[in-house]
C-alpha cells in the first residue's frame, strides 16, 4: 500500500514542488487513516524515504573516490585475470600441470623462454602477480559526508605524522616515568632491556611502503632522529613494541636458513662440507673437521699455497675471529680466479661451515662482522674509448 503511495507521490513532488507541503500532509493523513495497518508501519515508510534523501547527499570527493576505487578494482581484476590466463598458457607451453604451476615455475619459464643478456636484473622480462607490480592504494580516508576519519588528515601525510606524534608522546611518557622512579613512586622492571644491536631502523623505502605515503629525505631524517632519541632513553624498553615496529632485524632471514648438522666420518670426527664457495672467478669447496689441530690444506698444500700475506690472513680470519684456530682442520679444493678471489672464497666457505660449530651468540657476531655475507662483486668490463673500466686517458690539450 505504501509503495503505491510513493509511486503516486514522487512524480507529483517533482512536478509541483510548490504544493509539496500541503499535499504531503493531506496524503499522509489520508493514508494513515484509510488502511487498518498500525501507525508504526507508516512511520517506517517515512524514515525509508528520509534515508533515501540522505544518500543523495554523498560528497563530491567521496563520489570521485568511489569512482576511482571502482576503476582500480576493475583494473586489478582484469590484470589478475590476464595473469591467470598467462600463467596457464605458460604452464601449457612448458608442458606442466597448470593447476600446480607456482610463481617460481613462472619465473623459471620466463627465464627459459625469454633469455636475456641484459645486465640489470630489473630490466629483464618478468611476469609477476599484479599486486606485486602495482603499488597498493590507500583505503578511503573520509566518510560519506566527506569528513576525514583521521585527525591528521589535513597534514597530507597522516600516517607519517601519527608515527611522529606517537614517538613524541612515548618520549614524554618515558620522562614522566623517569620522574616517578626518581621520586620512588614507581619501580622499573629489572629485566627490562632493549637490545638494538641486532637490528637496524627501516630504510626510507621500507618506511614508505609501511606507511603507504611518500616522505621526503628531511622527513625521514626527522623520523630517525626522534626514534633514536626515544631508543636512547633509559626506560625505552617500556615502548619496546612501538620501537620494534620500525626496526628490521639483521640476521633474521639469514638464520632462518637451516644450519646443517655435521656428519661423522670413520674416525668419529664431525665434518661438514660447504660446496659452491664463490668469489670473483674462484669456485671451490671447503671441508671442516672437528676436533682438529688447525691444519689447513689448500689443494694439497698448506697455507704456503698463497704467497702473499693478505690472502693468508683472509683464509685465517674466520678461524681467529671465532677462536677455533686450533680446534678444527680445514681442507679446501679451489680453482679458477686469482689468489685474492680464491682466498675470499675459502674465507666464506670456512665461515659458512663454522656455523655448525659455534653458538648463536658467535653466529650473531660473525654476521655483524660480515663473515657470512657473500661478496658478489665481479670484474667490471672495459669500456670502449677508454683504457679501463673507469680510467680515462690522460687529458691532453691538443
Amino acid at each position: 500500500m505504501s509503495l503505491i503511495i510513493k509511486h503516486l507521490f514522487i512524480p507529483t513532488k517533482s512536478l509541483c514542488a510548490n504544493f509539496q507541503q500541503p499535499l504531503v500532509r493531506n496524503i499522509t493523513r489520508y493514508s494513515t487513516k484509510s488502511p487498518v495497518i498500525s501507525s508504526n508501519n507508516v512511520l517506517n515508510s517515512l524514515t525509508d524515504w528520509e534515508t533515501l534523501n540522505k544518500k543523495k547527499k554523498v560528497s563530491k570527493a567521496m563520489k570521485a573516490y568511489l569512482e576511482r576505487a571502482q576503476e582500480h578494482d576493475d583494473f586489478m581484476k582484469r590484470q589478475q585475470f590476464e595473469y591467470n590466463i598467462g600463467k596457464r598458457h605458460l604452464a601449457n607451453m612448458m608442458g606442466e600441470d597448470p593447476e600446480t604451476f607456482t610463481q617460481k615455475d613462472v619465473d623459471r619459464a620466463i627465464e627459459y623462454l625469454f633469455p636475456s643478456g641484459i645486465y640489470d636484473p630489473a630490466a629483464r622480462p618478468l611476469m609477476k602477480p599484479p599486486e606485486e607490480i602495482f603499488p597498493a592504494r590507500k583505503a578511503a580516508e573520509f566518510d560519506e559526508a566527506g569528513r576525514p576519519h583521521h585527525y591528521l588528515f589535513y597534514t597530507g601525510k597522516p600516517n607519517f605524522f601519527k608515527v611522529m606524534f606517537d614517538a613524541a608522546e612515548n618520549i614524554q611518557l618515558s620522562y614522566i616515568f623517569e620522574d616517578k622512579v626518581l621520586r620512588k613512586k614507581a619501580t622499573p622492571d629489572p629485566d627490562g632491556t632493549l637490545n638494538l644491536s641486532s637490528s637496524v631502523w627501516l630504510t626510507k623505502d621500507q618506511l614508505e611502503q609501511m606507511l603507504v605515503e611518500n616522505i621526503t629525505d628531511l622527513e625521514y631524517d626527522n623520523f630517525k632522529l626522534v626514534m633514536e632519541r626515544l631508543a636512547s632513553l633509559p626506560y625505552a624498553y617500556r615502548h619496546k613494541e612501538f620501537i620494534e615496529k620500525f626496526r628490521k632485524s639483521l640476521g633474521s632471514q639469514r638464520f632462518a636458513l637451516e644450519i646443517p648438522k655435521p656428519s661423522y666420518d670413520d674416525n668419529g670426527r664431525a665434518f661438514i662440507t660447504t660446496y659452491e664457495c664463490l668469489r670473483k672467478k674462484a669456485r671451490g669447496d671447503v671441508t671442516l673437521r672437528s676436533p682438529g689441530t688447525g691444519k689447513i690444506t689448500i689443494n694439497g698444500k698448506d697455507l704456503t699455497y698463497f704467497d702473499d700475506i693478505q690472502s693468508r690472513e683472509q683464509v685465517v680470519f674466520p678461524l681467529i675471529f671465532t677462536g677455533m684456530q686450533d680446534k678444527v682442520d680445514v681442507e679446501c679444493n679451489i680453482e679458477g680466479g686469482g689468489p685474492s678471489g680464491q682466498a675470499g672464497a675459502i674465507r666464506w666457505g670456512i665461515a659458512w661451515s663454522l656455523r655448525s660449530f659455534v653458538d648463536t651468540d658467535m653466529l650473531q657476531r660473525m654476521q655483524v662482522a660480515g663473515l657470512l655475507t657473500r661478496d658478489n662483486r665481479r670484474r667490471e668490463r672495459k669500456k670502449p674509448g677508454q683504457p679501463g673500466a673507469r680510467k680515462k686517458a690522460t687529458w691532453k690539450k691538443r
Partner: protein
Amino acid sequence: MLSRNWRHLCRRYSQAVTFRTNENSPAQQNDKQVGLFYTVNPDLCKQLFSHGGFPKSFMKQTKTFTETAIMVRQPALDLINCIRASDMDQPAIRYVLYGEKGTGKSLTLAHLLHYAHEDGFLIVHVPWVSEWLRRITRHKEMSNSQTREGLVDLPLDAAAWLIHFKSQNQKLLKSGNLKTNKEYVWSKREKTEVGSPLSDLVELGINRVKYACDVIDALVDEIKILSNNKQCKTFVAIDGFNSFFYPLTRLNTPTKRKVEPDEVTLTSSFMKITKNDWKNGVIVVTADELSVPEEHHESYLPRYLLYKKGFEHLDPFVPIQINRYSDKEFMTCVSYYRDRLWLRGPTEIEMELKFTSASNPYKFMEQCAPL
C-alpha cells in the same frame, strides 16, 4: 730514566731462562738445548764470518740486535753427532742440506762451521757460490786461464776467497804444521818449494792475484794430501752448491760467449774437493733454490736442484732436510724477538703471525720488522 732501564733489565732477565741457553759451545750442546738461542762470541764471529757466511738479512739483524744469536736446531745437532760418530779413516761423507726458502740452511751451516772451528777442523768454506757465478758486479774481473786451456779465471773472487780462508784458519796456519808436499812453479822467478808452510801458498795467492785461481787449485790438492796423511782434519762447507750445476752462469767472456760453470777454474777445484776420494774430512753442501734463477724454483728437492750431473757427482750422500719452525721453536723465537723489542704488541698477534708466516723463519723475521 734509570727506573725505565731497570724495568727493561728486569724484564729481560725474567725471560732469559725461557729462550736462551748459556751453552755457547756447539760441541757441548745436546737435545736439551733444542729450540734455544746461543750467542756467538763477537771476536769469533768476526774471524769466521766477516767475509760472508751469514745471509745478508741475518747480518742486518745481528747489527740491530747487537749480538749474533743462533738457534740450536735438530738437524745441526744430528749432523754434529753424525760427524762425531763417523769413522775418519773412511772416505769423506757428504751431507746435503736442503729445504724450502728461508728455513735456515745457511744458518745451520754457520752453526756447523762454529762447531768445526771449535773441534779444530781445517775449514774450507765457500759462503755463496752464486757470488762467483751469478752475481755480476761492475768490477767483475775475468781472464782466460794461463795454465788450463779454454777455462776462465776469476782472480779477484779467488783472492777474496783466499783471504776468507786465511782468516777462518788463522790458528792452524800460524802453527806451521801444515807443509806443502809438492813444488809449484808459478813463473821464472816465483815458485813454492816442497815443505814450505801452507800459509805461504795462501799469501802468494793473495799478493799475486794473477795466480789466485791456480793457488786455490794447488791448495785443494795439498789439503787433500794433508788430510790423507792425518796432518789435519778438514771440514768442507759450500753454500748454494747447486749453482755449480746450473747449465749456464751469467758470466760472459770478452768475446760475448756465455760461460758454463764447468769452464770456470774455481768450479773444477771445488769439484775436486767434493769428491770422496780422500779421507779424514767432512763435506757439507747446501742445495738452495735461491742460487738459481727464479724460473727454476719449482722444487726444493736435491734431485731437482742438483740436476742429474750434480746428483751423480755427489752420490752417495746423506740428505738432511731443514724444516720450518716447530711450535716450540716458534715460541722461543717469539720470546727472543720480544726480548730484543723486535716484536711488540698483544700476545694475540703471535697466533696470527704463525699463520701468515706459516712458521717460516725468514718470513717470520720479515713480518715482525714493522711491528
